[in-house]
């Protein structure tokens, strides 16, 4: 589903990603962990070209983002959830969710609203359709953001530290939605600090540090028997 080859990304003279190779299979849930500044968010943002790679290739669902693919077309298939939600504050929750399907996929308002209400029901916010984002709690906003991304019926979902900006008591309501999504077979790449989620939901765990993938494998395996020194050091601090 996602095929990354020899990906490099520099900001000015600073090289953040130093040659990443990564293949994500359909329906696979890949969890990316690592210290801050390790390049994990940049890696994720290269998967929908919010960051433009310096070199290397990123192919998603057969579309070469670093080649001749129409980036807007490609992004229709790649949902993204941000750390700070990024809901549109001037629109109701319903409008937040229906805007892109109507403008990009040319779906009728009636149908878009029907889908939006179903999605809101699914993330447990069926009664919030007419609320404005600033009236919602962080956890509720993030669930709306997930519904908004899902409304495009994407083939892949990217999560960029989706619970990092939340109060602790709201983390689980968001993780639960992500869990059910994973169980339904969505292909997901998740950058997170939630080790419990990584262990429980992840099919594969990636430990990134210094712009390279240091270690990867089955999450339980990596958590219990990290092979690399740097992985051990990191896990000893966060577990």
């Amino acid at each position: 589903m996602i095929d990354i080859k020899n990906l490099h990304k520099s900001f000015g003279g600073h090289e953040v990603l130093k040659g990443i190779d990564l293949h994500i299979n359909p329906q696979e849930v890949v969890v990316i962990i690592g210290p801050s500044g390790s390049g994990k968010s940049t890696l994720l943002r290269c998967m929908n070209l919010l960051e433009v790679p310096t070199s290397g290739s990123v192919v998603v669902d057969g579309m070469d983002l670093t080649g001749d693919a129409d980036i807007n077309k490609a992004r229709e298939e790649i949902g993204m959830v941000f750390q700070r939600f990024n809901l549109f504050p001037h629109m109701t929750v319903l409008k937040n969710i229906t805007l892109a399907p109507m403008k990009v996929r040319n779906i009728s308002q009636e149908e878009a609203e029907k889908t939006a209400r179903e999605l809101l029901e699914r993330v447990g916010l069926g009664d919030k359709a007419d609320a404005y984002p600033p009236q919602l709690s962080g956890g509720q906003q993030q669930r709306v953001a997930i519904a908004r991304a899902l409304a495009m019926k994407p083939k892949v979902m990217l999560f960029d530290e989706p619970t990092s900006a939340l109060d602790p008591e709201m983390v689980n309501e968001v993780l639960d939605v992500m869990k059910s999504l994973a169980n339904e077979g969505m292909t997901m790449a998740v950058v997170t600090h939630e080790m419990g989620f990584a262990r429980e939901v992840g099919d594969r765990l990636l430990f990134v540090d210094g712009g390279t993938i240091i270690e990867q494998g089955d999450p339980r395996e990596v958590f219990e028997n990290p092979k690399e020194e740097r992985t051990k050091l990191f896990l000893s601090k966060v577990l």
Partner: protein
Amino acid sequence: MNLNVDLMINSLPLLIVGAGITIQITAISVGLGLIIGMFVGIARICNVKVLRALATVYIDFLRGTPLLVQIFLIYFALPMVVGQRVDPFIAAITACGINSGAYIAEIFRAGIQAIDEGQMEAGRSLGMSWVQTMRYIIVPQAFKNVIPPLGNEFIALLKDSSLVSVIGFEELTRRGQLIIARTYGSLEIWITVALIYLVMTLTISRLVSYMEKRLATK
């Protein structure tokens, strides 16, 4: 010193008609400026280099030269090029509109750049184009931010529009001059003219803060 109050009162009807014309050319010019300013302001931050450069030249030229000179350029210099006399009204609104377009462009640019860049990223990540994201997400939010500075621009232009009196266009200031030419009542007329400008600018600034409050509670 003797203040002829009768002269002030008698000249009011003529001056108020002039004030109406002042408001009219200000409103038309700001309307023109809004359209120009929106496009130039967006061009200034778009990712097409040529457009960005053109927008910068436009803004630099119009903010870097006096409005009075711009009025002369359009009323006196332009006819030499096109070989046709320019109507004073057209010259007045064109000069003021093009000029305020440059200031409004900068207001829009600042208003747009004040929007969190996560909004653009969210729009783009949903598959919307840059133009769609601007239109549906960024510009509507920027509009709230720009109401107060736009109000200030309206007030500034209302005052600066007195400059078009030099090309003989009969707005408030020009009418004052004409009445003085007849009555020699410099003191009375200029005080009256100043007071009328003051009433107009104060009214507008109250109106703007009222709008601002209403938008803020939304």
